[in-house]
């Protein structure tokens, strides 16, 4: 098991290096630079040239990348934001909690609602509950998160005035964003849980359990559910990554100051240090989440566990 984890951690390194290189190239191949941001509008040509020399922007891109990575790896220094003039790490640490609250809240909501509804829908196949669930999840699947966010905001904050619409001060601010962020994935999870349950319920061992007189409850929770949940774990894991990407959109709908809004603002204003650090952070989070999912999967599935030993 340790060997497996170690190997996975090692393969993360080239992937992260690759991402950092690609993003760095993308940000630096763009014509124009951030001198306007730093010096303000109407700076003289000499001042701009001096700044470019000072920041090392006149060096070849790969040299700049090398210098950046050396700073990151040896000193943990991700540079200073061109816009706010604060060290990027500081800004990230202020914004990260909001993104994490959003992500954790969404996942919790997705699992707590998705799995029970999926089971109910499968156990009562073709009932009214099942049909409504399928219809609603089909519609939600087709709903882009920003439209969902606007609709929720319109209904619950502007019309009903129950919840705040923008910002990230209290836990109430996170209710609508969490629903927005998880809605599409929730719908997929419901459909996935349902179809897995249906498959398992028809299997021989469930029929055996029924025929020996086990109660319906024991059949569903003791025999069927455990086997049906295996693929669901993978889906949850895969969705987590997509959710972190989707958080970028959700954050900008609800004006939450998180990592996502930092990326969007940074890209608009060519603030390379902020964008680099924020995107790398997202990539690291996604890689770690995927690793954790793989470990859980190996842990839950005895067939895989014995293979790894």
């Amino acid at each position, binding site marked *: 098991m340790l060997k497996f984890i170690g190997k996975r951690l090692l393969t993360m390194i*080239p*992937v*992260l290096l*690759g*991402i950092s290189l*690609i*993003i760095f190239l*993308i*940000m630096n*191949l*763009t014509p124009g630079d951030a001198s306007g941001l730093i010096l303000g509008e109407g700076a003289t040509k000499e001042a701009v040239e001096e700044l470019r020399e000072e920041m090392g922007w006149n060096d070849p891109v790969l040299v700049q990348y090398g210098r950046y990575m050396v700073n990151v790896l040896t000193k943990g220094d991700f540079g200073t934001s061109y816009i706010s003039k604060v060290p990027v790490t500081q800004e990230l640490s202020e914004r990260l909690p909001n993104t994490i609250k959003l992500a954790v809240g969404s996942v919790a909501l997705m699992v707590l609602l998705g799995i029970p509804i999926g089971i109910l829908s499968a156990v009562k196949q073709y009932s009214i509950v099942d049909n409504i669930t399928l219809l609603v999840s*089909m*519609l939600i*699947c*087709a*709903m*882009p*998160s*920003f*439209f969902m966010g*606007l*609709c929720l*905001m*319109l209904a619950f904050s*502007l019309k009903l005035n129950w919840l705040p619409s923008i910002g990230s001060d209290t836990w109430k601010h996170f209710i609508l964003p969490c629903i927005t962020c998880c809605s599409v994935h929730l719908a997929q999870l419901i459909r996935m849980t349902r*179809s897995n349950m*249906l*498959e398992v319920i*028809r299997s021989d061992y469930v029929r055996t359990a029924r025929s020996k007189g086990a109660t319906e409850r024991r059949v569903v929770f003791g025999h069927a559910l455990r086997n049906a949940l295996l693929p669901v774990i993978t889906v949850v894991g895969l969705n987590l*990554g*997509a959710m*972190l*990407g*989707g958080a*970028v*959109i959700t954050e*900008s709908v609800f004006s939450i100051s998180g990592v996502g809004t930092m*990326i*969007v603002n940074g*890209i*608009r204003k*060519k603030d390379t240090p902020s*964008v680099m650090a924020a*995107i790398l952070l*997202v*990539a690291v989070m*996604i*890689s770690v989440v995927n690793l954790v999912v793989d470990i859980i999967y190996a842990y839950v599935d005895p067939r895989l566990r014995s293979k790894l030993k």
Partner: protein
Amino acid sequence: MRKDIQAEQAVNELEVKKRSQLGYIWFRFRKNKLAMLGLLLLAAMALVCITAPLYLSYEEDVVTQHVMEKFSKPFSAGHILGTDRYGRDMFARIVYGGRISLTMGFAIVALSLLIGGTIGAIAGYYGGIVDNILMRLMDILLALPQILMAMAIVAVLGTDIKNLLIAMTIANIPKFARIVRSAILQIQGQEYIEAAKACGTRDPRTILRHILPNAIGPIVVQATLQIAQSIISLAALSFIGLGVQSPQPEWGTMLSEGKQDMMLYPFVVIEPGIAIMLAVLSFNLMGDGLRDALDPKLKN
């Protein structure tokens, strides 16, 4: 006499059942009501969008501002879906937005399928070190959420339609490389491929004539579903201001413009939102229907 007719009918019915592979797929697809609903919905939308220049003028109805008529209610005279804050007809803007969204959806998927598919086919067919290098590259691209990748590329190239197409295509390539690769790996071990190779068939021909037709099912399904995703991603980019720029109408752009007026005039965000949902829904329904039609075993 009657018996003859019955016999003839029976023969006819038997003949009906002799269908080509494609015919069978169409037969099963047609029986799926939801899938047909998706197809009809898409056909209707495509028709309205393609014929738009015949009944709408881009300059007059879509771009020109008529401030006197701003925020007309839906179903008011001359404006079925009302007008926005500049008095521009919502219906005209949604239709012209649809022209962009639907074309871009198809174009993005076609291009990334072509490029990503080629990469995946080469990786899957040759295996070994080629496979390793290509797929590790794809892993790097996949490690970032698609929308972030597209955002970064758009930021470099600037926001116009051509650059959006390039950015979204690049962001979509790794997904298709993976799908095509795994589809090819499944066929690879079959005996008829070995037979083709033994006959001295050249590699490109083996891939295109022998492997691809047998692997096409899952690829078509994924491509259909991916068109829906691309429409959403494009609208999302426009929504955060990195996509299609105003005054050019696009569903995401319309939503972000309408955001400031949604308190008093909710229809300015709800209408383009529903347009996106209908488009995405039609592709999703068709994708699901195709999956069932292509592989009846999967259906419970």
